[in-house]
């Protein structure tokens, strides 16, 4: 039974961080109606920022959140403003051209990272990277637990922001009905830019939190992009609450799968869940949670 609880705990800890990436993607999905297929690559960029700050200036990964998040916010704003928003006006028969653009952006980010850092595996090895503590018989990784805590704080903060502030309300209004929001005096162009920035910043947060635990290499982005979109579909496109449940579900399912079926099955389980959701519950958890 200990193995089961251990697996569950590991899954929840990982799921919390997945949720953070998922929320970023689902926000963008809700407001712009596109899946950002560069989400994992943005996360990869923040991991490298953390790595550089750590190896050059010995800045603790958790402190470098203060630098990585604004930096990625800025990057997201620039991407949305100069690469994605111009596409709205472009007249084309190409379907999903914004999504394809994010694919291109993802490729360029990966290759630029490879250009600068080569394909080598890097790691941010802090003193607590491999440390664990025990509650009963169950071991908790210190780095993952702290990361989970910070992820929860940011998720709650995001909620407060979306529910209580004017800007958050404008974002939700734009997501619900763009034209109506424009009529109510919301500058939707500006909202899309801010939303993409926020989505990138959340990816940056997840990336920085994961940096002490994962090896860092240029291609790490793509698997996280696919995880993020599984989460978004699981949760229901555009649903923030759904993304949290989606992230936790994916995390738990992955770690149960790798414990009881074997490490090879970790990825395939996420995809099987994804297909099952598409078939049986196409609107995801949104249908159950109603938010």
């Amino acid at each position, binding site marked *: 039974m200990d193995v089961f609880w251990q697996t569950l705990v590991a899954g929840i800890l990982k799921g919390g961080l997945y949720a953070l990436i998922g929320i970023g993607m689902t926000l963008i999905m809700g407001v712009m109606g596109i899946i950002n297929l560069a989400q994992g690559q943005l996360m990869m960029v923040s991991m490298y920022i953390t790595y550089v700050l750590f190896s050059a200036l010995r800045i603790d990964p958790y402190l470098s959140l203060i630098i990585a998040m604004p930096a990625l916010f800025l990057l997201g704003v620039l991407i949305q403003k100069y690469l994605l928003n111009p596409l709205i006006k472009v007249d084309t028969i190409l379907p999903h051209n914004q999504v394809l653009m994010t694919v291109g952006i993802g490729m360029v980010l990966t290759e630029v990272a490879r250009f600068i850092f080569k394909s080598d595996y890097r790691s941010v090895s802090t003193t607590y990277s491999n440390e664990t503590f025990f509650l009963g018989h169950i071991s908790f990784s210190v780095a993952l637990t702290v990361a989970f805590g910070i992820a929860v704080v940011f998720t709650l903060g995001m909620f407060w922001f979306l529910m209580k502030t004017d800007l958050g309300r404008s974002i939700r209004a734009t997501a619900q009905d763009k034209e109506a929001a424009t009529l109510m005096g919301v500058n939707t162009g500006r909202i899309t830019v801010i939303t993409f920035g926020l989505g990138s910043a959340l990816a940056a947060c997840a990336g920085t939190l994961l940096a002490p635990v994962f090896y860092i290499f240029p291609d790490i982005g793509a698997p996280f992009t696919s995880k993020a979109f599984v989460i978004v579909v699981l949760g229901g496109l555009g649903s923030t609450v759904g993304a949290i449940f989606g992230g936790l579900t994916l995390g738990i399912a992955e770690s149960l799968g790798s414990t009881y079926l074997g490490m*090879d099955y970790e990825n395939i389980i996420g995809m099987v869940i994804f297909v099952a959701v598409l078939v049986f519950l196409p609107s995801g958890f949104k249908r159950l949670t109603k938010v």
Partner: protein
Amino acid sequence: MKKNLYPMIFLIALIVFPLVLRQEYYQHLIILFMMWVVIGSSWNLLAGYTGRVSFGHAAFFGSGAYAAGLLAYHYGISPWWGMATGGLLATAVAFPFGWITFRLHGAYFALATLALNEVLKDAAKIAEPLTNGMVGILIMPTFSSKLPYYYIILVMMVLTILCMRLTVRSKLGYYFVSIREDQDAAESMGINTTRYKMISLCIGTFWTGLAGAFYMNYMGFIDPSVVFSLQDLSIAAVLVGIVGGVGTIYGPAVGAFIMIAVQEFFRSGFFGLFKYFGDKTGSGAFTTLSEFVKSAHTLGFGLLVILVILLLPNGIVGDWTKIKTKLFRMKVTT
């Protein structure tokens, strides 16, 4: 006749090409180019004409390659028979998949193809008794020369393009375009949209599977990370389509040519230009630069995609008149 003039000239050039230029390197490049025309065209039928973007064409390519490879590996059946089964297996994979996903509106299909690609890749890795897992499948190539392969893929490419042309100019093609333009309107006109999307998917995946089986024959070696590669196959197929021009017959051919050209351009360090300068001047700067350039071919293609989507949203063939007038005007003013 005039409309077919350029493709005919091009075709004759392709037939004569290997007889004139006997270097295997160039023949290899043209073989890859023609394979990409097949893949790009079949992607284009689905995305460009029917409006359903597939982000996971490697799933069908890989199915075709594995169909041919496994038959040869386990039963000793000539992999050329596998060509036929390759196309059929790819369609067999596509059929239930389309049946599930085409009932959903919006971006679900595009996302599900991405997932299908990953699932099949992992499945091929895990099913070791059948597929040898990561070790891959190695078969003896049938011909030692590249010429037979060259003409086989040439015939395949011509057949693909003819098939696309026939489909697009028939009633079927108009149904596809009407689905792309407005699915709900098409439905209310009495078009069974799910059925026609399925037909489009099946035709497209059949040719992709065939290309996969050809790849198995030609290369003699496959493993899951090569034939189910997201980056090198699925995304590349999308790129071939959009650079050349979606919804055009010859767009994928142009896109495939540019992709192979860009790839080789970077891979060979601008055709050895930098290395030449480096040797000539004896400075290390050029040599390091050439190393950088060699590793940057994906970067070059990524930048190309961003520029094409921004500036030539209908691709090079789709926006040809726009390019022509712009260039012409520039000539007049200067």
